[in-house]
């Protein structure tokens, strides 16, 4: 009997255990189909491109959604040895600034170009947060085509956000700095001598070419984030700011003293009118404008020397301040263009401003005094309402197409979904851990695609297999197609993502360039066939017009080069076949490799450091005989009379 009881108990345990397994998966219902939802079968494409800022890697990475697969890294503000960006002679100029040539920056936000407030898939813009710059990436080649430096700025954080037809990309300075004639002033004179600027950079509608159109001079404080208006508010731009206390030290304490900072509303149409009417003040400023020419495959720097500065305290009626609790961070305009959600990162509410009420308050001159000569609108007069107790540490808000908003909460580590009209919290999900930015595909436009929200977290801890002290960053993908947000995927991201955008793949993939046409290659050192390959001496510079095709380099034997010479390997990839790049490098290279796309020419400079015969080779596995794709260059002592010769195959006779 006793045995029977034991036996029964045993069976019962097994039964309970199995039953628990079953209820466990039922308990995580909603996420049980997660694998299926994030699964993209081998050989099939993702639904969205997800363009993700790289933060401290200075690059922009591209993932597929919903799989979270990394498909591309686009170097913008940092060198990239993998493809020679910033190392090849052609790309070095992209990193020129008034401070010299800079190999690194901190890339925070991206924006995808828009037409009528909707994504148009033409360009992507990125900001450099350290040394102020804006980059433009062409979405047919996924290459950085242009970088414009922003003068009178320090820490280009509230950038590169767009007006709804991509008329302007903005650049608000994070740090205010002395902008007067005298630069050598005491830091303690912040309140007297420091100013900020909000720069408006125009975008040529055909070429995408950037031009610093005007800069709005602002009181010294910190400018944080920004968004362009949409629809009814399309003529306006909204910027958040903190440190309205105008502190210059220990901001952790001193910039949190005021109960409210501001959301700054700028009527850019009006500012544009002032600028066109010549109302601003022209100021001297030296800044770099770097443009990559797709036909010469070469970047050049133009030095600009002037900016137009508009002072809103003098030129009235285009800048208004809306009080906003506690160091606002995100400042996000909903798809209707009628509401602006501001996230006081230290606040326990999300104030939502009404654009209509703002216009009325301006018309009624319903002011609460002024701040440094700029009118401050009454908080209650411009407020649509506050989302009460949404969570802790609200940072950024994105929107879906159904009138809902999704706000990231850093301190309480969650995404909170709320309704823009009713301001009621509808749902919340935890993120792992401490979310910074978030992204809903098209969630910053008039036409959000919805479907997913992605959390870009600041803390990873135990989410992936441990890799020592330095960890990858963690992102989570949530399905938002239903009422409740459902976690469906963790995926690692590189660098440190800040803002990201996602766009349906169909808007980009059919336009993607496969090869550069060799006949359109206008590089000054191109060799469009092996017959044009040659080696030319110009003083102590040796120009090697080299070609690469499966599976040899031409020429692959070079003699007559001497110590003290500088060798320019101009490598043209003769292939006209999709996905057949050739690489090039040489022993002892103090540079990176160059990775040359089909039809393209790129140049590696090499200064011989020893007498001898030095090997070079193709560094991208291109073909079955890739390993045979190699050559030698003979380096003779300075003053040697070894004649300059080059060949592939039979060596020419010595003259």
């Amino acid at each position: 009997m006793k045995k029977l009881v034991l036996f029964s108990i045993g069976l019962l345990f097994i039964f309970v255990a199995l039953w628990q397994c079953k209820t466990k998966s039922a308990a995580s219902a909603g996420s049980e189909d997660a694998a299926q939802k994030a699964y993209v079968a081998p050989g099939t494409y993702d639904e969205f491109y997800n363009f993700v800022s790289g933060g401290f890697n200075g690059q922009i990475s591209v993932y597929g959604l919903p799989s979270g697969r990394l498909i591309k890294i686009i170097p913008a503000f940092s060198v990239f040895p993998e493809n020679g960006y910033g190392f090849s002679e052609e790309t070095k100029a992209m990193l020129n600034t008034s401070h010299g040539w800079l190999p690194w920056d901190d890339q925070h936000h991206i924006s995808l170009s828009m037409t009528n407030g909707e994504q148009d898939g033409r360009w992507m813009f990125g900001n450099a947060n350290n040394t102020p710059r804006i980059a433009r990436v062409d979405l047919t080649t996924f290459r950085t085509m242009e970088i414009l430096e922003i003068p009178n700025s320090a820490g280009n954080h509230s950038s590169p956000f767009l007006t709804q037809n991509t008329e302007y990309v903005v650049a608000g300075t994070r740090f205010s700095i002395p902008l007067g004639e005298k630069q050598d002033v005491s830091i303690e004179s912040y309140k007297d001598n420091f100013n900020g600027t909000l720069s408006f950079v125009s975008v040529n509608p055909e070429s995408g070419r950037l031009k610093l159109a005007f800069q709005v001079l602002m009181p010294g404080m910190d400018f944080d984030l920004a968004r362009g208006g949409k629809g009814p508010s399309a003529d306006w731009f909204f910027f958040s700011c903190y440190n309205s206390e105008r502190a210059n030290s220990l901001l952790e304490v001193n910039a949190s003293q005021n109960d409210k900072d501001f959301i700054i509303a700028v009527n850019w149409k009006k500012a544009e009118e002032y600028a066109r009417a010549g109302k601003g003040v022209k100021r001297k400023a030296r800044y770099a404008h770097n443009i990559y020419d797709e036909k010469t495959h070469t970047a050049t720097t133009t030095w600009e020397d002037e900016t137009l500065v508009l002072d809103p305290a003098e030129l009235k009626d285009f800048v208004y301040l809306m009080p906003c609790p506690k160091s606002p961070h995100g400042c996000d305009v909903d798809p209707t263009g009628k509401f602006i959600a501001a996230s006081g990162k230290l606040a326990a509410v999300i104030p939502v401003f009404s654009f209509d009420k703002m216009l009325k308050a301006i018309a009624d001159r319903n002011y609460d005094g002024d701040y440094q000569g700029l009118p401050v609108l009454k908080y209650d007069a411009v407020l649509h309402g506050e989302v009460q107790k949404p969570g802790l540490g609200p940072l950024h808000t994105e929107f879906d197409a159904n009138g809902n908003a999704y706000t990231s909460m850093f301190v309480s580590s969650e995404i909170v979904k709320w309704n823009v009209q009713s301001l009621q919290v509808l749902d919340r999900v935890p993120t792992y851990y401490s979310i910074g930015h978030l992204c809903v595909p098209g969630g910053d436009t008039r036409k959000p695609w919805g479907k997913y929200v992605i959390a870009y977290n600041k803390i990873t801890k135990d989410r992936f297999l441990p890799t020592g002290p330095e960890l990858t960053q963690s992102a989570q993908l949530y399905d938002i197609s239903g009422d409740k947000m459902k976690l469906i995927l963790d995926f690692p991201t590189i660098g440190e993502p800040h803002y990201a955008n996602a766009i349906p793949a169909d808007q980009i993939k059919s336009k993607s360039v496969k090869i550069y046409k060799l006949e359109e290659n206008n590089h000054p050192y191109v060799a469009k066939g092996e017959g044009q390959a040659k080696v030319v001496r110009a003083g102590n510079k040796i120009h090697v017009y080299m070609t690469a095709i499966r599976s040899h380099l031409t020429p692959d034997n070079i003699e007559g080069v001497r110590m003290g010479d500088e060798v320019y390997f101009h490598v043209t990839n003769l292939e006209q076949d999709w996905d057949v790049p050739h690489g090039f490098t040489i022993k002892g290279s103090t540079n990176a490799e160059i990775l040359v796309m089909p039809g393209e020419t790129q140049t590696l400079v090499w200064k011989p450091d020893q007498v001898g015969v030095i090997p070079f080779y193709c560094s991208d596995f291109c073909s079955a005989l890739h390993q045979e794709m190699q050559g030698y260059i003979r380096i003779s002592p300075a003053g040697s009379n070894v004649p300059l010769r080059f060949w592939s195959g039979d060596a020419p006779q010595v003259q």
Partner: protein
Amino acid sequence: MKHLFQIIPIAGLLVLICACNQAAPSGADSAAATPAATVGQSGVKDDVSQQNVLQIAMGSKDHTTLVAAVKAAGLVDVLVNAGPFTVFAPTDAAFAKLPKETLDNLMKPENKAALSNILEYHVYVGVIKKEQMRDGQKLNQVNLKNVVVAVKDGDVLLNGSAHIVASVPASNGIIHVVDEVLLPPEK
């Protein structure tokens, strides 16, 4: 047969344990088709790092009421966040100064919002060391209400009555132990 009768219960237990393991909160250990039912950052296993404000409070024998309140308010994961936080941590003796009824009421699930409000009034986002506090300084706390600092003869007084009796640095901020519960102003 006799052995079988003994083995079955043990095997049953083993299966149960295995099943439980699979459903364990940290579940990140094994690959699965469905997301692990993870807890927040407070569930991260880490015995090496400096202790955070929550761990310090949990390790203090004088802060059992505070810890219970933090748990009841669901703020456990918040206090292990990167912060940084300045936490004013009332001792059990400080909580005992409140009417027992008030405290009991606050701990009820239906009063979670009121409890959170009081606890959030004890937290400032940012690190403020005692020596950085200035007479007349206002600290805008997580619940958006101000705590007013008074400094007299080196002694720091909060809202006119609470003393900082000790300060403990943490990995994600600093704890100032206080001898009174801070009650947020009504308006």
